[in-house]
């Protein structure tokens, strides 16, 4: 199947129609969930970031902070992916050809790989991991997540 056929299939599916052909406030509701999920996700990452960089909660054990931050991370990730997928399916052809959307998805893949392949492991062994490496990965990761927010906000304007 070509890309165009896949996009058409998604956008003409029952689930897409249940969103796109309903009241416009259904789409607005998904946007609301998406931004709340993003705030939750960023809250978790910024909290861990401040702790690892020694900018806040310095006297608290890293493991303690990370455990609770991870709960927020998963709540946030579930919210953004669920609401994001539903928004995409409902207007697949519109999103797919937007540069801001492409860039956002690219950054999202980078952020998720950084988070689960690298950052999570470094955080688990903060005592042995070189602090400069932890700081660099953390800085890049936060910058990428900010980039996701930024490019996401651009989608509606391009």
């Amino acid at each position: 199947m070509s890309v165009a056929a896949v996009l058409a299939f998604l956008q003409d599916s029952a689930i897409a129609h249940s969103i796109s052909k309903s009241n416009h406030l259904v789409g607005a509701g998904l946007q609301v969930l998406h931004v709340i999920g993003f705030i939750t996700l960023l809250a978790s990452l910024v909290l861990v970031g401040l702790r690892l960089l020694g900018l806040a909660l310095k006297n608290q054990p890293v493991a303690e902070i990370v455990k609770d931050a991870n709960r927020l991370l998963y709540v946030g990730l579930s919210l953004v992916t669920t609401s994001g997928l539903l928004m995409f399916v409902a207007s697949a052809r519109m999103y797919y050809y937007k540069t801001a959307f492409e860039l956002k998805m690219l950054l999202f893949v980078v952020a998720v790989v950084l988070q689960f392949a690298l950052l999570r492991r470094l955080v688990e062994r903060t005592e042995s991991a070189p602090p400069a490496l932890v700081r660099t990965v953390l800085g890049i990761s936060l910058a990428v997540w900010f980039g996701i927010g930024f490019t996401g906000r651009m989608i509606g304007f391009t």
Partner: protein
Amino acid sequence: MSILATLLPLAEQLEQTALGTALAESTYAFPIIEGLHLIGLSVALGLLFITDLRLAGVILKRVPASVVLQQLLPWVLGGFVVILVTGGLLFVAEASSMLSNPAFAFKLVFIAIAAINAAYFEFVIARRPGALESSPQLPANVRMAGVTSLVMWGLVVICGRLIPYLPAWT
């Protein structure tokens, strides 16, 4: 509405200032400021939600509430400066349509309630001896202040995102 009738000409003047027209006419300024507004609020409100959840006794239960407040609030306030400046610029660019937007009006109401709650917490509740002592479960009025803050700022975010979706007051 008579208040709206008095404020609308002022809003139109604001839009026609050099700053207002520059923001409205630039292709990039508006989306860039929107982007910065989102990033500022995800840092400030994100950390504020963490503080609220600590007060409510949901997360970071083994970290003393006083430590969470003292260590995270400077970052919350720093983020608030970014939100306020970017929010102010967005308002200048679209002042008259904001004034007639119900979601924007509700957003301001919820910000005011959240501010009153924060002031009451800071100057009354938190000043009582033992209010923030390092225990997992805090006094009921402290937990209530946390929940109120969480709900009010949540409503502020919801109203903010709904601004482009709701029709103007008639």
